[in-house]
């Protein structure tokens, strides 16, 4: 049984989908990722789907759900490297992933996450200094 690795990189979680997604795998990823976020207190999640060639409505919804769940757990989520065909399919399916950040590649996704987490930390630091 394949597993999708979830790597921890400083305060970020890195998920690289390198195998064909099937329904069971997607559900398992959803489970593991939410667990890992709460365990590690990660501030950002980067999901790299550049090797994903085919999506159906279920996988499309799972990507959207996983991103939404990560957001609920207060982790910024970026989906990176979506293939043109996948993007077209998702749009045709009406899954436009509202509220999910996207980036062209892992590099840009990382930069986006870092600036996003830094901003929120700055806000928290300001909040903390106010309350003190």
């Amino acid at each position: 049984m394949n597993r999708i690795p979830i790597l921890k990189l400083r305060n970020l979680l890195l998920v690289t989908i390198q195998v064909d997604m099937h329904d069971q795998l997607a559900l398992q990823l959803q489970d593991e990722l939410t667990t890992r976020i709460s365990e590690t207190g990660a501030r950002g999640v980067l999901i790299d789907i550049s090797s994903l060639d085919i999506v159906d409505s279920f996988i499309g919804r799972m990507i959207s759900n996983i991103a939404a769940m990560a957001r609920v757990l207060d982790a910024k989520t970026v989906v990176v490297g979506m293939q043109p065909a996948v993007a077209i399919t998702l749009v045709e399916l009406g899954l436009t992933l509202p509220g999910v950040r996207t980036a062209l590649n892992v590099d840009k996704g990382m930069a986006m996450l870092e600036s996003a987490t830094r901003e929120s930390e700055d806000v928290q630091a300001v909040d903390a200094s106010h309350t003190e």
Partner: protein
Amino acid sequence: MSAATNTVIPRILKTYEAELLDEWLREQPAGFRSSTKIKDGELRQQSAEFLSLLQQATQGGNITDVQGVSYERVRDLLGDISRSRGLQGFSPSETAMFVFSLKRPLFARIRKELATDADGLAAVMWSATELLDKLGLFTTEFYQKSREEVITRQQEELLELSTPVVKLWDGILALPMIGTLDSNRTQIVMEALLQRIVETGAEIAIIDITGVPTVDTLTAQHLLKTVTAARLMGADCIISGIRPQIAQTIVHLGVDLSAVTTKATLGDAFRRALEMTGQRNKLSRPSA
């Protein structure tokens, strides 16, 4: 139809080949002979070739089935002729008249040949007219087909020509759209744009619709789809070149473009794109 009837036409074609050719050439539509579109020599050569091929084809006694093997070379010749006629600007009926005008000289010969045999004359006449009608129709069909090929090819070329994706600056692509946006074209445009985004790693794509004559709800929906797909891949889109009338139409139709950055001109969109990618200072002129 008796075997004798079947041999009359090939015999006539063979015996009177030269006479038939001369008479036929006189019968050809005036447009063929006097026009500058086609030379006398060329027409004569085509007619002579057709007659001799037809004679060979009918030799075997087959004078009804023009789709048969014996008519292969006749069909090839007619195909060539109707294609070149089409290119020279002849009308389909003029092209078909090439074959039909053979009727009068041929019938005259048949009548002379079978002057004493009324029944035989009727039978031969009928098969001759059937044969020439079929060949004439074949010419018209082929003419139509070659026209359609031209149209299809031009459509394809138009599709390819009308979707250039231009790199304007580091990380900025532009897509000048020209012509009506239908589902077919949007699909091609979308694919071309997304592919280029992957190749160049561009963060901003400017879709310029200056050349799009009208925008209806369907067009707007197609545009929004393209923008969404680009966003899913991690690139932002700016729609530019919205003319005043189109702005009015979009609002009247109730199309919601609020999720998309829109600009009036490509220049404005480019400036915005430079700001978004943090390259604004690179463009400032020395005087400014």
